[in-house]
């Protein structure tokens, strides 16, 4: 068992899921309320990592992070840090690749709230922001937990984007899924099996939680 890789994976998954909670909430809220014509295009963009091969997403992100690219150059100039092949770069890439796993459940939950509940809150004197915090957020908390678990799980198991952006630097960017790949290549079957069983167990528990929460959320509106 590569505990160092486990530690990197766990840290990456925790930070990614925590970052995605506010990002996902605000993006979903904007998509739900916006009258902007290009709203569906923005929604499609946020869902793109679901269908795009991880290597393709990884390639574009790596290109953007390159110091030769204006964006990559700008980041190096302002922060003094290279994103490519670093943990920070890995975090940025993970946030982007897991974005749909946060936005989609939150957006569906917000769409499920009848609009006159919001309107009733406004007529009770609540501002749109207070309505969001005191009415919408409590109503969608099971979906927030679902979003958090899904993004955590997805980041824990991410392989393509991680390999493209982070490479395989032990203690920095080498995650559990990359370590499993390495173990298989090195014919260390037992180690690969142990690490795979750990990921399988975590995934099974979290997916079970997601289904149970979804049922609870559904019941609330019945």
């Amino acid at each position: 068992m590569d505990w160092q890789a486990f530690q990197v994976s766990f840290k990456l998954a925790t930070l990614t899921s925590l970052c995605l909670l506010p990002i996902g909430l605000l993006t979903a809220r904007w998509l739900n309320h916006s009258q902007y014509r290009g709203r569906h295009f923005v929604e499609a963009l946020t869902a793109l990592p679901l269908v795009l091969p991880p290597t393709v997403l990884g390639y574009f992100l790596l290109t953007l992070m390159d110091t030769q690219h204006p964006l990559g150059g700008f980041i190096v100039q302002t922060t003094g840090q290279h994103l490519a092949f670093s943990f920070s770069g890995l975090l940025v890439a993970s946030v982007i690749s897991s974005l749909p796993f946060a936005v989609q459940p939150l957006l569906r939950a917000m769409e499920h709230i009848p609009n006159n509940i919001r309107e009733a809150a406004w007529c009770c004197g609540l501002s749109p922001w207070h309505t969001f915090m005191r009415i919408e957020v409590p109503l969608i908390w099971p979906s927030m937990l679902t979003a958090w678990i899904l993004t955590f799980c997805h980041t824990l198991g991410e392989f393509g984007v991680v390999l493209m952006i982070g490479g395989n630097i032990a203690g920095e960017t080498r995650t559990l899924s990359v370590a499993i790949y390495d173990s298989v290549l090195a014919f260390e079957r037992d180690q690969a099996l142990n690490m795979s069983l750990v990921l399988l167990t975590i995934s099974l528990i979290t997916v079970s939680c997601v289904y149970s929460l979804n049922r609870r959320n559904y019941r609330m509106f019945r």
Partner: protein
Amino acid sequence: MHPLRVNITLNNPTQLDVELSCEPGQMLALVGPSGSGKSTTLRCIAGLQKPSSGVIEGGGQCWFDSQQRLALSPQQRRVGIVFQDYALFPHLNVADNVRLALDSHMDASVVEQLLVQVHLSGLASRYPAQLSGGQQQRVALARALARNPNVLLLDEPFSAVDKVTRRKLYLELHALRQQLAMPVILVTHDLDEAAMLADQMCVIHQGITLQQGTIDEVMQRPKNLSVARQVDVRNLFEGTLVQTDNAYKLRWHNHLFELVQAPLSARACIEAEVYWTIAPAKILLHQQRRPSKGDQENAVNAVVDQMITMRGIATLLVTVEGSLGQQLQLDVPEHVLHRNQITLGQTIGVSLLAQAIHIMPRTA
């Protein structure tokens, strides 16, 4: 408390041309068929929808004025609204649903007072899903009143409850109304509901308000044919207004009826085609044993075709002699029917009271 005055138009997503007013302490029923724009009007008053043009005044201030580009938010207008499906907050219990609408400076004991007022004391810790339809409606009403609103808006509040509960809620709302000082707008498509609860009625059809007045005024003296149809006038006929001996009379087939109503326009005319109506309760049944003076007034003979009795009131459908088979409807108490031994096919005498005959122009 201040009156509510609305004079607005809306072009999108539906056409609206609304003019209505409601005095403090008064209940105005906004009546019309489904899709006539009742709820949209309510949404415009609440500030949930922006009209294309016009003015809305309430609470002693201007809420919307298209010329001044003024449009106050729902929060600023301070309206209480009961939605058709109540829109209670499902994650909050009854007390918290009401408490949410209280101003920060208001005493929390107000919640308890409001719950007592709507007969919900003891249910404060229940959640909306644990309440019946009638109880949910009461919570929505308590929540709407919690802000001490400038206007109370009720959007078909009785449509989601069964008939027995509805009757109970009618009585409760009627009693509660005596304590309310603000203008109240009740949206409904049920004319009986409007007649039972409201002081005034405003008829809306295809987004246009056709007539506002007291319940009796609108129901018995509709402004035109459209209003008459909307308020489901039962005796509606075509006739001719004629001038004889400096007085106007109504010619209907072979009959010439006396009128009390003034002519339709100041300009005198010899003859004019009109619609006319008379409320079924205003047609007098002649008693065979004891003829009275009223029997002389616009008397006609008619044959009883049908008798329908409901809750002590008998509705008779009678074919008037000399009217080419046209039928009149009259309502009489059931005991009158028995006392006069009225049977099907019998010829009876009735009087169409001159004061109750209402004439309307043929042109809209």
